[in-house]
């Protein structure tokens, strides 16, 4: 299980990175955390001709938070973001989800932006990006552009990033104070990819649910925004009936692919339970809730 040979590039600046990537087009594979890429290369399931190591681009090693957003640069490691107090305050769903990403040693190397760009359908961070309606900043030779999360995930491991482009930042809109949030997942073992996971944010206003957001991971080709579940929650009373209805609506029509860890019907059941639990957690935490 030794990787095949490749040409190695290590740009020292963003300009250099963009130039190299532009030149290589789809022959260039970006290496940031490498926690997903290198295992694939060891199996020789990925054999890129060129690897572009972006770990020297220190300008992207940042986590900036203000009232409006938490901006995570391409090189911010998952553990750094997880431990950041401002993230805990302004994007608590992100912090909670990070606790489910593999194990700390992996999070020391893995990057938040990298995980979003990798777009594994079972991964937590793409689902969080979708839930919080994040914006991905992407830079290429033709300049910089912003891509909304809802337009970003195209399929399993497929995003709107073009060959030659580098994702440089993911900006997560800050959750308003008092927002309830909950991220849960069910996995076979601690740290594994989820059989199904759910992320929820919502608010309580005058005893009613407002601004509900519900996402699922591990149940389709991309993370899914469960619009029907959100409709079931919106304006509803924070009770068991509403939650149950929303959970049922969330899994209506989904077709999680079957594999050795679970068939489709099983995964739908698990997903439904995760949605229910995530909503319950969010209600508990919302200002005006029981928590």
């Amino acid at each position, binding site marked *: *299980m*030794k*990787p*095949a*040979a490749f040409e190695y590039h290590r740009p020292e600046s963003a300009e250099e990175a963009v130039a190299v990537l532009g030149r290589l087009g789809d022959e260039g594979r970006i290496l940031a955390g490498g926690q997903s890429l290198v295992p694939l290369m060891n*199996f*020789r399931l990925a054999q890129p001709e060129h690897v572009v190591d972006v770990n020297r681009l220190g300008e992207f090693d940042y986590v900036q938070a203000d009232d409006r957003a938490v901006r995570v640069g391409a090189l911010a490691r998952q553990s750094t973001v997880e431990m950041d107090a401002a993230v805990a305050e302004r994007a608590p769903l992100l912090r909670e989800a990070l606790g489910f990403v593999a194990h700390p040693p992996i999070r020391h190397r893995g990057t938040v932006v990298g995980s979003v760009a990798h777009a594994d359908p079972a991964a937590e961070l793409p689902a969080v990006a979708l839930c919080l309606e994040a914006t991905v900043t992407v830079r290429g030779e033709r300049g910089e552009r912003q891509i909304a999360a809802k337009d970003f995930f195209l399929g399993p491991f497929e995003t709107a990033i073009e060959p030659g482009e580098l994702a440089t930042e993911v900006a997560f809109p800050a959750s308003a104070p008092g927002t309830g949030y909950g991220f849960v997942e*069910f996995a*076979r*073992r*601690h*740290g*594994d*990819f989820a*059989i199904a996971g759910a992320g929820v944010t919502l608010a309580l206003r005058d005893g009613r649910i407002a601004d509900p957001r519900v996402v699922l991971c591990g149940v389709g080709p991309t993370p899914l925004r469960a619009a029907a579940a959100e409709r079931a929650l919106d304006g509803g009373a924070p009770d068991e009936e509403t939650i149950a209805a929303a959970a049922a609506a969330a899994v209506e029509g989904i077709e999680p692919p079957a*594999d*050795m*860890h*679970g*068939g489709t019907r*099983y995964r739908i*059941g*698990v997903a*439904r*339970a995760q949605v*229910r639990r995530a909503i319950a957690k969010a209600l508990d935490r919302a200002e005006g809730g029981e928590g």
Partner: protein
Amino acid sequence: MATNPRTNTEIPLVEKPSDLKWIGKSVKRVEDPKYLRGLGKYVADLGFDGMLHAAVVRSPYAHARILSVDTSAARAMPGVRAVVTGAEAAEIVDPLPDSGPAPEQHVLRVLAVDKVRYVGEGVAVVIADTRYLAEDARDMVLVEYEPLDVIADPLVALADTSNLVHDDLGTNIAYERTFTFGDVEGDFAAADIIVKDKLHWHRCAAQALDNSGAIAIYDAGSGEMTLHTNSISITSFSFGLAASMRVASNKLNMVPHPSGGSFGARFSNWRTAVTAALGAKVTGRPVKYSEDRLDHILNGDQHSSDRYYELELAMTEDGIFKSYRTDVVDDYGAYIYLGVGTHGNAMAQVVGPYRIQSTEYRLRAVLTNKCQQGAYRGFGAEVANWAIERIVDKAARQLDIDPAELRRKNFIQPDQFPYHIPTGNLYDSGDYERVLDHALDEFDYAGMRAEQERMRAEGRNVGIGIVSCQERSVYSATEFWFWFDEPAAEVTSTPEGVKLVVDPMGNLNVTLYSTPFWGNSSDTMAAMLLAEDFDVDPQTIGIDYGGTKGGLPAAGPGGSRLTVMYAGAIRGAAGKIKEKARRIAAEMLEADADDLEWSDGGFQVVGSPSSRAEFADIAMTAHLFATKLPDDLQSGLEATHVYDHPYTTMPSKDRSDLGSFYPCMGHACHLAMVEVDLETGGVEILRYAAVHDAGTMVNPRSLEGQIIGGTAQGVATALLEELVYDDQGQLLSTSFMDFLMPTAMEVPELLIGHEETPSPITEYGIKGGGEAGRMMAPGAMSAAIDDALREYDVHVTDLPATPERILDWVGQKAGS
């Protein structure tokens, strides 16, 4: 009462020796410092000048004819020294040693020649300067295959005579036989109740963190082949491996090296050795074949049993077991190099700890297009344990009797030992009720049942399960051939030899054979046994692992035999040394040898302790002062001793009595408390207790380590681990992302207790305990899940009981 066949005396029950000084103490292990410092040298760590690296080209098909193998492009790749196809290999090395039923028909070669029979089977090997370069070249080997229909389902393969794994065999059934012991038919006819069960123990694997590996160095001038390997060699059988390599029997030296775990995976795993040897012969340089994880999962010969059971238990209306029938189909994969030894292990204790008077065992060993089975902790007896405990639990449910009490009333009683079970095997000693009561106490059974009721009232699906299982140790060679009426050789030797050398300073050095260090504390066991005999700190003893060349007969680890066999061998060698030392001391003290006694590290005159010779002084005298020795003694102070199996008897000709082949019978009781989440099928372990009886304990802490580690594997077998082959024979679980070994979060904290019912046939009354835990936990977990889901009438019939399977069972019963 049984008779010891060696001494022809009755075997009395024994007490544990009371005057032990080292045995029974949880001393720090002597091997640890080097591993803690990262200085343990596993095979993958070793290197030799000029050494080359091998990478095996593996088949992507489960069943296909090999039409051609084009190695021209591969041979031209950088750093490549040789590329050898299966056909070319067959000219250089012979088939591997094979204890299967028909080695001439299911020919086991290191690389496939005519066709491939499982995904991952080796087709060619590349030898290059580095593993990286070898893998580059491997990608360039062009193999043309003609795919054949895949034989994936053993129950279909049984009947299929048109599509065969081995055409020369004429069938996919490698072995089929029914053994009947006692009046099974009569006992079933007379029974009040017959309980039936149907089970499937799915394939998993030992999956140690280290892989099998070997480095071969061949000297064409002398014909010597040196193999540095982490597999055992079994000294007296190494001539078979030498023959495979076309090396003279006295020119093969298999040198054992530590392995990062084995759990059976390194048990006579000779494929890597022959691959390396092949490479060494072809290139004339040292060649290392060190499996990586993918090699090992696909082609490592370390898969577990894969069994389909139909069981029947005959009992009286008040729950006394009378007779037990097993009908088992075992999917061995494409080869069967250990024969049906895993069923010998089963038959050693097939009736469990119960007074069942008759039993029948129908075995069909089937071949399919999967990697072959090897040995995995329990070696088939863990599966049989699970099977009988499943049907006993079913019986308890049917009779509405507490499962602990149903077991208790059927136990073999203390005054019945030594006890022959219907198959003929001897249970040397035991006190099962004592273990049960201790376990119930450790677990707080009454308290936990109350707690369970409280939690169930809250709507939580909480269950408690209990099992009482045997743990046989110290196998005899007979279990490898009593399957056949006309075996090729009625081997009865499974010896263990040690060499003990005392240096002039009085320091001890022991050489062990056929033993790679696998984590099973072989150093510490040997050191503590020696410490007991010589009154020295175990940390001061020098330990050496000898190769097969000039090595003593030894079989090494396996079947939890090692500590028992070391105890006998070391006792014997120590005795010889002490005898010589006594005579030298007598000379030194000008006393009569008969008037001396060993005391506290030296010999002294009985009743006159000041008249004393320290062992160190005796040793110095022995080495340097020849003229001070008794006339008939030579210089030096060393001894070898080979210890044979302490109690083996022959099977009867008609095989209605298999003889005694696995008599050192340990026992354990495990209890588990679990909660099942009905939305996800997830199982959380709330409490777990294990009480083991492995006779006299040498190092209790070390034994506990085995119990916990074994239980962790058993829990994983119950919930997590499965090697899944699809209907095209593709292995789906090829990485650690899919083969789910437990992390610290999946393994419970164990409450552990010990009982010591000494063996009457071993030194110090020791029994083997190394396979501990794995032989019990699957049953305990299954029972706990059943109990948690009792209102759905769930009965775990498949392991692993994955979350999805659990919900399916619930759903089936609930009718949804």
